[in-house]
């Protein structure tokens, strides 16, 4: 039974071991991060700007290369992959970006279908010969984020909230086993931010895949996540349930207390 359980959850779980990153030698951004993300649920990473949250999330799909350490996912150490093996690992990791990062001159549909690029040769992408089932799936994704009627619009004609929903659709088109979100709401107004978080959490829940969200809005983190990881100075200083995150933790994470409402 235990064995069956581990094999079931293993494809989705992520283990970081002694992950270090330094852009400049001798000035580490991440200092030996050890973190295990179970195969489900929403994990929010909070912390002040420049503390390595973004670097941590971007190390996982190797948009940033870690200096040392292991990133264990689906039986591979992503930190050591390159070429085709790395691209195959990336296919299984969807990412929602801070400034949406849609290709602005492409249509919404083309952006969503970009999520399938890891599965097709370049000449087919050039000819826009996407598989019929991918196209149908893209429409289902757009239905799910409420943007089907925008499929033929150019991405730069959309509002911020709409673009981020396209970004979510693109990430989920990959059929990911893990969803990363790098400050997905920081460019959005508060209401839109909540809407985008709701859609992302709902769609990830339907697929039963874990989500790692790097977010600076503590309220949103507490509202949507079932686990909070607090980082400061390149280290994890809090790891627990949202209800266990107290003011003294926040004081440790962000430094000082003067900025808090009740201080």
């Amino acid at each position, binding site marked *: 039974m235990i064995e069956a359980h581990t094999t079931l959850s293993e494809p989705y779980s992520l283990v970081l071991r002694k992950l270090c990153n330094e852009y400049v030698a001798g000035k580490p951004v991440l200092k030996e991060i050890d973190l295990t993300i179970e195969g489900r649920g929403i994990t929010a990473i909070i912390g002040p700007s420049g503390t390595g949250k973004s670097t941590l999330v971007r190390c996982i799909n190797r948009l940033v290369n870690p200096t040392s350490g292991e990133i264990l996912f689906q039986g591979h150490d992503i930190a050591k992959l390159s070429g085709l093996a790395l691209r195959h690992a990336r296919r299984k990791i969807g990412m929602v970006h801070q400034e949406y990062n*849609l290709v602005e001159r492409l249509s919404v549909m083309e952006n969503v279908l*970009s999520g399938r*690029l890891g599965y097709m040769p370049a000449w087919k992408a050039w000819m826009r010969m996407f598989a019929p089932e991918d196209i149908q799936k893209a429409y289902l994704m757009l239905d799910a984020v409420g943007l089907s009627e925008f499929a033929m619009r150019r991405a730069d004609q959309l509002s911020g909230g709409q673009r981020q929903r396209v970004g979510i659709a693109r990430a989920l088109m990959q059929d990911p086993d893990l969803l990363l979100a790098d400050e997905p709401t920081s460019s959005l107004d508060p209401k839109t931010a909540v809407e985008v978080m709701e859609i992302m959490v709902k769609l990830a829940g339907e697929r039963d895949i874990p989500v790692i969200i790097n977010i600076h809005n503590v309220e949103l983190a507490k509202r949507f996540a079932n686990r909070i990881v607090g980082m400061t100075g390149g280290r994890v200083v809090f790891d627990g349930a949202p209800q266990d995150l107290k003011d003294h933790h926040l004081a440790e994470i962000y430094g000082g207390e003067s900025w808090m409402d009740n201080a």
Partner: protein
Amino acid sequence: MNAATAVMERQAFLPNWPKRAAFAALGLYILYALSTLEFTWARFMRGLEQGSKFLDRLWPPNFAPDKLMLMSEGLLESVQIALLATSVGILLSIPISLISARNLVPGWLSWIGRSIIALARSFHPMIVTILFVKAVGFGALAGILALIVSSIGFIAKLLAEAIEEMNMKQVEAVRATGASWVNVLVMGVVPQVMARFVGFSAYQLDSNLRNSTIVGIVGGGGIGATLFTAYQRFDYDFAMTILLAIIAIIMVSEVFSGWLREMFQ
């Protein structure tokens, strides 16, 4: 009182003495250069007189049938030189610009790409034409090869710069989906630079049409040789006919390239 003077003394900009000195030096050099050219008012007036005589002999243009035949042959060859050189130049420019863009390839490779571009830009098309005339002989081939070189120099350079200025975040997002390098090019890079690339190419077609009318002067084929001969034989009325035809071609290409740019906006 003290506070007020302090406010007066605070400056928004620092005086840039090296810049002022450089401008002063440039001004002095221009004055010196003018003084060495023996440029006098009398000479200028004499030139104007000569010019008006020349303009007088240009008009009316000569539309004799045998002249028109001679001209259309040369013109057609010029247009062919321009079209072929532009097409081949564009095809060669794409890979060269890709390996020159520092945000797509490792440094050593972009250095090679940049060297090719620098070499292609080093010489004026006329000098390159002379080289190719020596290498492959008189005729259109030399002109085509020379204009291919200058097309690479222009399109590859500007395209490489356009690629380096594109939004890397969009490219990164495509890369994050697990797309291969070529797939990232197709869906992340091409959409961002396509409109500018079409603009450069259309401009280069214009430029090649103009250049294809002069490469003939040094033996590179096209209307240039005919035009040069007309000048040398003082057939100014025929030269005028050729000039008018060239203007017409450039205007047509202007309309065509504008339409092309519009389509790819």
